[in-house]
């Protein structure tokens, strides 16, 4: 069990520029005591992986509103594995239809928090997987 502060990268992969959700969740995680790094917009999956490596994070949170969540999540998860970061959990948020939840989990996402998710649920999940390690 780990007791150090959780480090999390909030990332906006792809071309979508709607960042209200990403910034709102980033603030909620920070208020819950986590160290939050925000990538800014228009990141390629490769740039997200590189940032995860450089920042030595425990968790990567992806915010995707454009509908391209399946290919983008796959590329981030695979990129993390190839970079030797398979212990970094990927959590996906945004406009995610219910039918894609299972697909994202199969691709290797640890959890999906679509629009309307409660902060307490997101925080509890992230603290939960962190403490398992």
């Amino acid at each position: 069990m780990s007791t150090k502060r959780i480090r999390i990268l909030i990332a906006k992969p792809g071309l979508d520029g709607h960042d209200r959700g990403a910034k709102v969740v980033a603030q909620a995680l920070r208020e819950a005591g986590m160290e939050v790094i925000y990538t800014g917009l228009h990141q390629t999956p490769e740039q997200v992986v590189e940032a995860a490596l450089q920042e030595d994070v425990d968790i990567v949170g992806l915010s995707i509103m454009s509908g391209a969540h399946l290919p983008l999540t796959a590329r981030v998860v695979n990129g993390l594995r190839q970079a030797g970061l398979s212990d970094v959990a990927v959590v996906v948020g945004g406009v995610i239809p219910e039918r894609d939840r299972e697909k994202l989990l199969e691709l290797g996402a640890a959890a999906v928090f679509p629009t309307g998710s409660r902060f307490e649920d997101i925080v509890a999940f992230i603290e939960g997987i962190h403490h398992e390690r």
Partner: protein
Amino acid sequence: MSAKAASVRDVVLESGIVVKPVYGPADVADIDYARDIGEPGQFPFTRGIHPLMYRARPWTMRQYAGFGTPRETNERFKFLIANGQNALNVAFDLPTQMGLDSDDPRAEGEVGRVGMAVDTLADMEEAFEGIPLDRISTSLTINAVAAPIMAMYFVVAEKQGVPLSDVRGTAQNDILKEYIGRGAWIFPVEPAIRLIGDTVEFCARHVPKYYPISVCGYHIRESGATPVQEIAYAFAIACAYIDHVVARGVSADDFVPRLSFNFDIHGNLFEQVAKFRAARRLWARLIRDRYGATDPDAMKMKMLAGGGGGGLTVEEPENNIVRGAYYALISALSGTQTMALCCYDEAYTIPSEKASLISLRTMQILAEEMGLCDTVDPLAGSYYVERLTTDMEKLIVAEMARVEEWGGIVRAVSEGLIQRIVAQQAYAYEKALQRGEIVKVGVNKYRATPPSPTTSEEGGRRGEGREVQLHEYRPDQAEAQMRRTAQIRAQRDGEAVSRALEALKRAAQGRENLMPYFLNAVRAYATLGEMTAVLKAVFGEFKEPVGL
């Protein structure tokens, strides 16, 4: 005072105004009809910019549409026109908005997803095939690459035999708000404003019926701004563009009449109506006093208002049809020129044809069954609405003064100050929502138990009739788009393209207006990606201030 009266709860609007339980003549004693309200169609235009408003002509109905290939978009346009819509509003996919061709590696998975893919003139020709550009007014929702996309639109008109002097339409072309919300920026702030100046100057001289900018308070509000900030920041942005164009030696009277606004509607009905009436009054005074404009048309604030995506909910999506109808009512009571509503399924998917039609019918029912077009500004003279209008105007003026104290809107946006303010407010709003301090019916109050299913598949599994149908992304259409663009690259005169791009580059390095260079490159079938790459090489790219 009775126990009941003493126990009424406090009501504070988002803008911070405390609402009294009752308003009366004393509340409007400081408001002078001739000075502050005036006749419709006359300064300061509080009641509306036309003397007869909807009695003479109802608002324009302009639903946002566009997806997949230009062919599919063309079909949806013709469907909407056949159902009585009288103007178009084009959605572009993200690669197009970011100036990337469909076969660019960064476009993977995004081609045709949230709008129409445009790589070359051929795509715009196909999208507007059979749609006369002098009769149907089209709005292009494009910003960072508005100049080359407008050039494509103008060349389509040229090919249809429509002279530029007759071309109608609007481009969003408001880059400063992209840095605050929506995020489809490419270039640094200064060259981005220059591109806007080029389009405005070009239109003032050659395309006089075209509205080259629609300044958007909408996305600023959707990002977390209050109604007062929405107007204040939008006006500050509009003034930044006006200052830039005036500095080129174009008189305000020659282009300000062709600026328009795109505003948001959700939240308290009366606060929104007062916001728009206050904004019209303030804009008229601002343009007259600050820019010395003499043409009354320059002082008339023209607006698109509707939307309200931020007020819609994922939960119980059919409730959004009802919310949309109220937003349309607010829009009509506010004297809008053009209305566009968010569809009830937008929190899930690209709107279905059915959802799109319901939005159109909502506006038509309001115009033709409910009496909203019968008399101008029906809320005028209400003690409450006039008090609110005056108070909102004062608050907007104060917020604009704050922007000046920060060193102006360009600096505040470049440094990320506005972005931080709206993000912090968005977080505070979300917390209040999750605590139930702000009520959303069906979300944090009167929740259905068990919660209603949300998509057709889920509903199908539960054996219930479902309303939201998910739009299917079609990778085969993306492939077709890439093949088509590859074919055009192979067939065009490569040397002519190189010459046009080289000329564009040299002009970008200097100070000339770039529109003639875009037009030439477009005629040679240069791709949007090629033109954008030239500009990136000269201008560089915006570095986002990412601090939270």
